[in-house]
């Protein structure tokens, strides 16, 4: 048998039909659904008299529109948001899919609760009408975002028409220095390869620095595969993966666990597998990073300066000019001199328990600077509950953070959590596009540790310059 990559193996295991023209029908093991990209798909089913083929493999949860203030009983003020949530409610009931309503403690960001509930398992194909579905690739699952028409297609057929992507390996050798985290890895990759560097590829992340990451860290890395243009990001499952999965609500048990493990242990890229593209990084050379512009590829080490548009080529020159104007920044400004108004900790990139622990570690004995609006939005109700149990929540509130309910929140501002025009935010989310967090809002992407450091000083800050004992190892 010819050697295969992990992507090849998962692809082959899910191939229902392959046409002569190369278009393939791929079986989908898990379909995650949220309220924004699904109403038109369910409506399409109704209009054509179709049903959901596999409701037991379909999991729905509201997250994008959900308000994050602590009083959920008062409902949703925005009428359109409310209608969208009501539509999901009705669709979940009418079509009989698994559902975590707002009132359920397990509700949260779809990409946080899939893994949390054990829906996400190695070797699966997982789709969702959301580009950050790439997150689930951390388990060695082939996971990617789809549009609403494809949501309808998966609902009706449990398959997706696909053409196969190329294989790209991103290897991170060595060990991360103190103060550098999974978020810096994924931002470093995009900074080097660009937002279109992964277009046409499925990326497998490998190397010692990836192996050393927790599942939370791996999810952060895979989450932003889409920001690098890739269809999906993957990490081969190992003991860290199996330990995370075991015992979760929907993970296999008993004999099924053993059968699953037998297959999962074959899920790695063969030594002599063919790669269409290989990129290698030395983890020891990665510094804590921040973005300065309006594209996730606008990445620089925190000790850098705002670049001049002249340092770019082609269409990037005008893009940089536009970005600097939007961001209200001048070339040559030290990144550490940029003052911020707001700190946002959360999102499917960095809304997991480990992220909150990281923030708590930095905040030990420190406070949010006066005048800074700092909010923490846990990725799920269970993450929130765990942080409360561990005492993190109380400490962070004492330090000056707002402690909110679970949802997508200010990552994209579909709920009331938005930036005002000109408001500058240190954000642990994934996109710094113009208007992303609110019209005119200015986003600097960074790790939770770096966002916490910014909360303390009120400006972009090198977390390594804070006391060594609190820097994440």
């Amino acid at each position, binding site marked *: 048998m010819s050697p295969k990559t992990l992507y090849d193996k998962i692809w082959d295991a899910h191939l*229902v039909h392959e*046409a002569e*023209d190369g*278009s393939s*029908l791929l*079986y989908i093991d898990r379909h995650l659904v949220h309220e*924004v*990209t699904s*109403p*038109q798909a369910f409506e399409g089913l109704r209009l*054509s008299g*179709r049903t959901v083929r596999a409701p037991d*493999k379909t999991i729905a949860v509201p997250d*994008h529109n959900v308000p994050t203030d602590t009083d959920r009983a008062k409902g949703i003020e*925005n009428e*359109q*948001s409310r*209608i*969208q949530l009501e539509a999901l409610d009705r669709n979940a009931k009418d079509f009989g899919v698994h559902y975590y309503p707002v009132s359920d403690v397990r509700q949260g960001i779809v990409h946080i609760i899939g893994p949390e509930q054990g829906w996400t*398992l190695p*070797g699966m194909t997982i789709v969702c009408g959301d*580009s950050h*579905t790439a997150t689930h690739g951390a388990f060695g699952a082939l996971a*990617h*975002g*789809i*549009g*609403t*028409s*494809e949501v*309808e*297609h998966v609902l*009706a*057929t*449990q398959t997706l*028409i696909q053409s196969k992507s190329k294989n790209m390996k991103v290897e991170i050798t060595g060990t991360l220095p103190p103060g550098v985290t999974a978020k810096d890895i994924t931002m470093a990759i995009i900074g080097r390869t660009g*937002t*279109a560097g992964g*277009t*046409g590829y499925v990326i497998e992340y490998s190397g010692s620095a990836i192996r050393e990451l927790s599942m939370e860290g791996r999810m952060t890395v895979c989450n932003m595969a*889409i920001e690098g*243009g890739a*269809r999906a990001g993957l990490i081969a499952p190992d003991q860290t993966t199996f330990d995370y999965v075991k015992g979760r609500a929907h993970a296999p048990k008993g004999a*099924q*666990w053993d*059968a*699953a493990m037998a297959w999962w242990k074959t899920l790695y890229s063969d030594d002599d597998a063919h790669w269409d593209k290989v990129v290698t990084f030395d983890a020891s050379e990665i510094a804590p990073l921040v973005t300065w512009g309006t594209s996730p590829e606008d990445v620089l080490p925190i000790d850098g300066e705002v670049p001049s548009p002249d340092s770019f080529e*082609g*269409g*990037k020159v*005008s*893009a940089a000019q*536009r970005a600097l104007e939007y961001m209200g920044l001048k070339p040559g400004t030290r990144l550490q001199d940029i003052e911020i108004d707001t700190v946002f900790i959360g999102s499917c990139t960095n809304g997991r328990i480990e992220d909150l622990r990281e923030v708590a570690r930095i905040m030990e004995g420190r406070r949010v600077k006066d005048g800074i609006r700092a909010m923490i939005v846990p990725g799920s109700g269970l993450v929130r509950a765990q942080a409360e149990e561990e005492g993190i929540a109380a400490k962070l509130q004492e330090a000056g953070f707002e402690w909110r309910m679970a949802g997508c929140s200010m990552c994209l*501002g*579909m709920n009331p959590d938005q930036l005002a025009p000109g408001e500058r935010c240190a954000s642990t989310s994934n*996109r710094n*596009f*113009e*208007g992303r967090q609110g019209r*005119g809002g200015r986003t600097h992407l960074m790790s939770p540790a770096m966002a916490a450091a910014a909360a303390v000083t009120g400006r972009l800050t090198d977390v390594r310059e804070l006391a060594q004992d609190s820097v994440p190892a």
Partner: protein
Amino acid sequence: MDKFDTLTGIAAPLPIVNVDTDMIIPKQYLKTIQRTGLGVSLFDEMRYDSDGNEVPDFVLNKPQYREAEILISGENFGCGSSREHAPWAIKDFGIRCVIAPSFADIFFNNCFKNGILPIALPQEQVDILMKDAERGQNARMTVDLEAQTVTTSDGEVIRFEIDPFRKHCLLNGLDDIALTLEKAAAIDGFEAEAAQSRPWV
């Protein structure tokens, strides 16, 4: 789905790289539960000021481009979120063809599901079309999907590549779901086999 065969129309130049889906249609318009009505909000934050007035300099507000049916733009067009609201807004405005050096994967897929033809061409050829588009109303291009060509207002013919299956579906306005349901037996067979080999799924 609407068919796409040939299109002759005005092309609007939008020479920006990395046009993302938040630019194409910002979040506040994702709250709809319908596919239509988004055209008026296409490129909202570039097209209107914060009071909702048109920004006269924005290309689609200029008199010569208000009826544009083709959009010419920079590399990595449609990057960002999976929102199909982006192609819905483009189509609702009246644009049926987007030409750029490259496209983001999900946006590219979404176009085909909505009768929009995304054409990827080398930068030099996009530059030619961009220049042609800048001539405004007098520059009417023709896109011929069957022949896989774009013809400039000067008669210069540029050939483009397209996946044969997607071409077939666009030309005939085929419904993907109906096509897939024809393979229901294969899906049944796959499920029966998977129930044995991966019963935990």
